[in-house]
């Protein structure tokens, strides 16, 4: 268990609904089996776009700050928010720059394109290969469990409230079967002109 991806633990999931998307993460930060913090959110917002980062905690912080910088520079140059699909390509190329000394993170991007109103989610490996998905994206040490719950619970065209229930149940039940994830969760439900952030308590063990 010395994979850099599994030292600190953590889980993240994004889902597509009808005219909405959702992204959620757990709150645990650990050192192997020892839990160090139960308030380490893994989702970061960049205007209209949300980025979830699981993996090595130091890289989660570094990469989230790096993208804060890059997105701010983009906004100053372009005088507009970055679109989700643009963000996806920015993440991809930034990670590939470190092809032979990668950040040990598995990013997830979620958002709604403000121009077209279309939901957008995607995931990446640690060197920037994009996984575009029409349904859901999972990442982190509970990814196997998340694949199971998402594949079992998700269905097309869920409204914001149903999508919230679905992604919450998918995440909560997945992290309860992963020793390295859990301790509460953050859930973002993103609609075209409204984002709702909810904090889930979850099991504290």
């Amino acid at each position, binding site marked *: 268990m010395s994979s850099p991806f599994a030292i600190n633990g953590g889980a993240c999931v994004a889902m597509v609904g009808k005219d909405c998307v959702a992204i959620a993460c757990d709150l645990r930060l650990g050192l192997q089996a020892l839990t160090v913090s139960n308030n380490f959110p893994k989702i970061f917002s960049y205007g209209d776009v949300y980025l979830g980062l699981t993996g090595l905690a130091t890289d989660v912080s570094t990469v989230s700050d790096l993208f804060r910088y890059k997105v701010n520079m983009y906004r100053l140059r372009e005088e507009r928010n970055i679109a989700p699909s643009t963000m996806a390509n920015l993440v991809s190329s930034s990670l590939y720059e470190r092809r032979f000394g990668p950040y040990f993170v598995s990013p997830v991007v979620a958002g709604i394109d403000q121009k077209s109103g279309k939901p957008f989610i995607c995931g990446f490996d640690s060197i920037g290969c994009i996984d575009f998905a029409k349904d859901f994206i999972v990442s982190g040490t509970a990814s*196997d*469990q998340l*694949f*199971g*719950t998402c*594949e*079992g*619970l998700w269905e097309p065209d869920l409204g914001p409230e149903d999508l919230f229930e679905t992604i*919450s*149940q998918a995440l*909560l*039940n*997945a992290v*309860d*079967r992963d020793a390295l994830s859990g301790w509460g969760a953050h859930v973002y439900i993103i609609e075209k002109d409204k984002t709702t952030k909810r904090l889930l*308590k*979850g099991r504290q063990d």
Partner: protein
Amino acid sequence: MTMFSQNPLMNGPNYSFSQTPTMASGANKEHSFYPYTDNGGSTLAISGNDFMIMAGDTRSTSGYNINTRYSPKVFKIGGTTSSQDDATLVLSVVGFAADGHALKEKLDAIVKMYRYQHGKPMSVKACAQRLSTILYGKRFFPYYVTAILGGLDEDGKGAVYSYDPVGSYEREQCRAAGAAASLIMPFLDNQVNFKNQYIPGSGEGHALVERAKDPLPLVVVEALVKDAFDSAVERHIEVGDGLSMMLITKNGIEEKFLPLKKD
């Protein structure tokens, strides 16, 4: 010296005897033969009030190869004949298929002998303990399998016993095992034991009232099993081809087969 050797057996110098030795020379050498392999696949068992369901996919793999699309992992145990028509127990084994087969044969023989000597079928409880003993008997050269034993208990309630390869066991409401266990198990927690489900508006935070654990009817459980496997097939390459199911009720064991995706 070794590099000049003409003898591939010895990896060392030749000598003038026509026969290669049957004894190893000097210090012990590391054995490179690994007696196990993983044949993939997944199994799943759920117990209800007066029934239990045991299911397993029928794909057998070695690495990325599919050995066969039909190799059942769920077996009836302890019938009086080889047809197992009057069996009362089911066993599923997933992991190393050869060990699984040997384990099944052994347990079947023991339960058959019990039935012959006592004139009645073995109870699940007794069989569960016996299976644990068999597995622990090979503690230092284990059967590389995850076993699940199913049947109806003395009160006619569904019983599921799950094992680790060396015989630790526990009676449970439901259990997934094998390659896709990590995918299926959290889904089952949620849908069978209603984990993380609360009655809306019943309280704040941990004061929320949990959804009552009402026993599920057979049709619902059967649908859950199918859904669980359809999900596993979608995301796990070692799971697929077919689903073999055994439904145990007081009327006996009903066998069902459903196709799964073959990709």
